[in-house]
């Protein structure tokens, strides 16, 4: 096949015939066709990592499930984005996230603007079956404008990615593993003393929960602005051409 003719694949999503180029993921195509697959770690403009596992879809005729934000479709595939099994798994994952750290909406700065909260509402999660783990993490309020509360973090990795990929500072990364995983600033220093942070605030605005917030905001006041991201990415792609 000559590389100049892009390969177009046709397949179905929830019975609807759709097509995709070689670069497009199942999620891309679903969104183009008005099919809303729930996502949490994914954010347009950032490299998808497929780690929240909420966007998993079924491949018809098999028992297999794939994360739609990264999986590319094959010709003739029958994708199911909504089934009883998927809903059950998605609910369980959200419940697990709620049980992991302290997600008490009523006292949270992002109450009403939180993607985890919205996801729970969307999936009809009204109670948590699992024991609350509630580890205690120290807040870092050393930055003059922002603060980080790890107790509300869901480890989606958006802040890490935006800082690395968009801002180019790579101030944030992870330490520890498993349930003790923690987003850190530089080599686990205080945010306010970071030598690499450019104070751009992108991490705060891509954070889906109240883990990263502007200082001085009270309950439910921390709305996040994310439209800068696709815009920036678009401009940069344009420049490259």
């Amino acid at each position, binding site marked *: 096949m000559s590389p100049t003719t892009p390969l177009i694949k046709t397949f179905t999503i929830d019975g609807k015939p759709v097509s995709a180029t070689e670069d497009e993921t199942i999620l891309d195509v679903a969104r183009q066709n008005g099919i809303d697959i729930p996502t949490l770690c994914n954010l347009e403009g950032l490299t998808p*990592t*497929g*780690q*929240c*596992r909420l966007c*998993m879809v079924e491949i018809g005729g098999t028992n297999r*499930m794939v*994360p739609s934000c*990264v999986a*590319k479709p094959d010709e003739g595939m029958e994708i199911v984005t909504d089934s009883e099994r998927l809903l059950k*798994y998605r609910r*369980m*994952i959200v419940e*697990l*996230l709620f*049980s*992991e750290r302290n997600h008490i909406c009523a006292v949270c700065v992002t109450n009403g603007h939180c993607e985890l909260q919205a996801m729970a509402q969307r999936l009809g999660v009204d109670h948590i*079956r*699992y*024991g609350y*783990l509630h580890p205690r993490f120290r807040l870092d309020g050393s930055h003059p404008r922002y603060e980080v509360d790890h107790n509300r973090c*869901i*480890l989606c*990795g958006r802040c890490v990615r935006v800082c690395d990929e968009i801002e180019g500072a790579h101030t944030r*990364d*992870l330490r*520890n*593993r*498993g*349930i*003790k*995983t923690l987003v850190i600033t530089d080599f686990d220093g205080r945010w306010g003393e970071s030598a690499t942070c450019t104070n751009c605030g992108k991490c705060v605005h891509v954070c889906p929960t109240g883990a990263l917030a502007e200082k001085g905001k009270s309950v439910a006041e921390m709305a996040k602005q994310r439209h800068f991201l696709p815009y920036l990415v678009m401009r940069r792609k344009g420049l490259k051409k």
Partner: protein
Amino acid sequence: MTNEELIALAAQEAEDAKKYRYCLDICTGTGCMSSCSDAIATAIEAEVRERGLQNEIKVKQVGCMGLCASGPILSVQPLGLLYREMTPEEGVAVLVSLLDEKPQVEKRIDTLQPFFSRQERNVLENTGVIDPERVNDYIAVGGYTALIKAITEMTSAEVVQEVLHSGLRGRGGAGYPTGLKWSTVAKVPGELKYVVCNADEGDPGAFMDRSVLESDPHRVLEGMAIAAFAVGASQGYVYVRAEYPLAIKRVKSAIKAAEKMGLIGQAICGTPFNFRVEVRLGAGAFVCGEETALLNSIEGNRGMPRLRPPYPAQSGLFGKPTLVNNVETFANIPGIINNGGAWFARIGTEKSKGTKVFALTGKITNTGLIEVPMGITLREIIYDIGGGIPNGRKFKAVQTGGPSGGCIPAEHLDTPVDYESLKNLGSMMGSGGMVVIDDSSNMIDMARFFMEFSMEESCGKCAPCRVGTVQLYNLLGKFQAGIATEEDLTTLEELCDLMRNTSLCGLGQAAPNPILSTLRYFRHEYLEKIQPSVAAPPEEAL
């Protein structure tokens, strides 16, 4: 080095060996070293020097002889005698008895017992025979002939074909056909490709790869070089966990020695084939045994798994096509090239060919390292080779596959050991750890032990594994304490199902296996721990 030079060197070595009356081999694998086997070697050497017998008696430090339960082991060649539980004084006493022409009878190991006679040693053929720190020893037993044969007499496609014919499957546990993997990497276009040896063995109770690297490191290097030739790679990495200092030391010295000999490096054997090998150390994360996390770690990134596809064969280390195989897989290669794929495939079952190395541990008489033909039954391994359960206890289950595997109860002891049979039983082949459990153990404790392991080793990337393992661990704690409810059992099973289907990598997907397999065979133990139905069970009883 050419083939002729290699043969000449091997002949020279054989000639040298002849001039000794006796050769005393002392195991210096990690197990025997921890019982100070190096001191035995030193003591015997000193005695030999004192008596001026350096030209008659050779003292050699070799790798693992297998019967670790009886270590430190001293072997006397060419008599073929083995002595168990040696001390420096006793080692010297054996030497003295040899010089008196009356080899000591006391502490002799019966070498005709099933532990030795039922094994089929292929990967382990040189372990316990050669000095792992001397490349000449490996060459003397025919080492590196397979590499030279491959690069001078065969095309890379023929090498891949031979491996395909052998039916060899990945010895790391999943059992992916090795030849298929090789042919995939070979077909992916690319100037730069990598070969990676996964020596990040981390299952509790497993020490196969460690022993192979410690006892016969050149064999693994040779296998890697052949693989590199077959797939068109020029750079290799051995990823060893830092917890294996002796293995690291021996691999490093093996690389140096092989480079000096011109057996790896630039223009090997006068051909255009180049292959360099470097060692990379793991920093103690179990998940780095997962191939994509391993690649991340080699690149210097956090050891977290990547999404597959793309598979490493397409886009692996630094985005280049990469072949990742386990230590034992590579160690099987020289035999296949020298003797042919058909020779390898003569042993084993229809779908699982060759031999497999197992580390026998737990409640078993003959703790140690064994290699058996595929298709042997678990009963033969445990009762014949392993010598059964000590202390008059009864066999309860055997755990294979580590934290990703499961328990197999007594009623399935006659199952042949192969990839499919073990999988059908809800366990897996795994890398080869076999932990025998007797009737004094509780299966919930066992499941919780492995869940604790998975919980601590979860990398934290995906939610089902990160939080699921903790929740499962806590639920099992309720069962242990006898305060579980019917609902807890349902939650337990649901969470296992979730993790299995939605976790990102193999670690999370397989982590529920110890619970699922114990639920399958020992469900009554769980049911016994459920509180009789009470109106409102105490919520916060934990």
